[in-house]
């Protein structure tokens, strides 16, 4: 999370959130376009991807504010549901 | 530049810089791959796009710190050279 004493941790986090968000959106478009994923599976994948991104942002922010338990907890209560949603969506998409 | 009273201007700026950076990298890869752009033209476009992104980041930050002249100046002395570099690179690639 080094920012070369130029960028703050939050700035670095939001930059990579931007990168990850665009990559996620592109992944979803690819799923719909190339894999002909159904709309219900797309909805699950979108919700899952967004939840995972939110979990990562929360966990890194929690570490930056020196609250490591909040980071662990966010992995449990946000990341895990996100993974479940994404997995369900993925399975639904690939089943077709 | 609204952050819904949740995100600060700087957070919003860095988020969109991340989006723009990935899009730029993908664009450059596409130009090399699909358009068979030469390495010199890619170098010019890479330098140009990096300069443009830097100019945008500087200008938005200057507005956030309430120094509008710094924003205008950065567009002149950073964005403009960035545009020139990118245009030159693009012309070279498309030639």
């Amino acid at each position, binding site marked *: 999370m080094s920012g*070369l*004493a*130029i*960028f*703050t941790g939050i*700035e670095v986090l939001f930059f990579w959130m931007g990168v990850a968000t665009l990559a996620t959106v592109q992944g979803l478009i690819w799923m719909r376009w190339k894999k002909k994923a159904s709309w219900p599976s797309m909805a699950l994948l979108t919700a899952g991807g967004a939840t995972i991104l939110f979990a990562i942002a929360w966990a890194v922010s929690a570490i930056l504010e020196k609250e490591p338990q909040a980071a662990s907890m966010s992995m449990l209560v946000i990341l895990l549901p996100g993974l479940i949603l994404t997995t369900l969506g993925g399975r639904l998409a690939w089943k077709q | 530049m609204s*952050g819904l*009273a*949740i995100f*600060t201007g*700087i957070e919003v700026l860095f988020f969109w810089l991340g989006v723009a950076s990935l899009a730029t990298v993908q664009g450059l890869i596409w130009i090399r791959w699909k358009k068979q752009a030469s390495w010199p033209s890619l170098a010019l476009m890479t330098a140009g796009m990096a*300069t443009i992104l830097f100019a945008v*980041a*500087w200008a938005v*930050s*200057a507005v*956030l*710190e*309430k*120094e*509008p*002249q*710094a924003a205008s*100046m*950065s567009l*002149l*002395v*950073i964005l*403009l*050279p*960035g545009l*020139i*570099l990118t245009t030159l690179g693009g012309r070279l690639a498309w030639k």
Partner: protein
Amino acid sequence: MGVAGTAAALASGVSTSAQAREDGFGTVVHDDYPVELSPEYKRFSEYNTTIFRDARKGIPDMNPSIDDSRPGFTTSEFAMSMASTTLYKYMYTQEPGLRLETVHQPHDVLPEPHKFADSATAHAQIKRVARHFGASVVGITRHDERWDYSELVDPHDIHDVRPWEERMAGFKPKTMIVIGVEMEYEALAAAPSLVSDATVLNAYSGLTYTLMHLSNYFNYLGYKTIPAMSGVSLHIPYAIAAGLGEINRMGLLQNYKYGTRLRLSTLYTDLELDEYYDKPVTFGIQDFCENCMHCADKCPSKTIPRDIKPTFYTSEDTKGRPYMSYGIKKWQIDGQKCHDYWIESGTTCGTCLATCPYNKPDFWHHRLIDRLNTILPGPIHKFMAQMDLWHGYGDTFDEKAPAVFWDPKGRSYNGLKG
């Protein structure tokens, strides 16, 4: 900066013959004191400071006035500026032993003074406590009597002048805690005006708060202290020794993070540490100041010299100007001209602080430039300084600046909008 930037550099008359930094590259940590002293150097007397010399002539330290037709000088701005002095003025009115710049005795709580586990723990805890009490920056260094005034003036009787050792009889300081409190960027940008005065004076009140609380911390630990607000010691040399920055063209401290936007104080204590970890640092300020004349150019009283290099003044050079010290290699500032302008303008001026390219709010692009400046050579510094002006930073006498300070847009006072 690309093609246009290069063209701008050429247009600004950048010389390629400017010398490289002499102290090293990047941020350099020094074992020795990085400012040269001549054998002629001797301790300065507080009696000779411009403020006390003028006070003896009946000239006040400040001369603020109201002019509701001038932005920066309105009644509200006058009141804000004056109110900013509240805490430190109050703390000068207390009895000796309670007031600023007197010896404070240990509290009778512990059977003997507290011993920290080791010097590293002491450094870490003292600095954290100072931050807890509001210090923006803090450094710790050995007491060095060269940086104490030789004589001290009683602020309640300016004709009562006694040697430092007599005034502080019974106290043998060992350690100096140097603290700095930042001034507000938007307010300082309005210099010279009562708005910029307000942030200067408010920083003094902030320093008073921090100093008095930190002093009391040491008193509870069983140590004596002197909270030295603006007298007793020369704060800048102590700040340099404590690694808080370099001396600049204005003769002030240039801090890495806050630049010129910092006010300083010292706390004397008789706690002695086995080791002192804070060392002087330089990060290219002398080189930058050699190539940038903004403060000298913008100074309305021509107090700040335009000499390229810092120089030594001898006792001969300061003849007739006893308010100037000699024997220190630095840019020589004429404090009398400065204070004359304070009185004439009805402000404490501050244009040099506001115009300095290192005076910036805490944003990534300024941190980037600050870092680049530590490694770039002189000619580029000249270019950087020129670009700073072209970008509109460092304006002084800017009648729009108070409006930026007061503008309610983008500010949330009830917490509902962040």
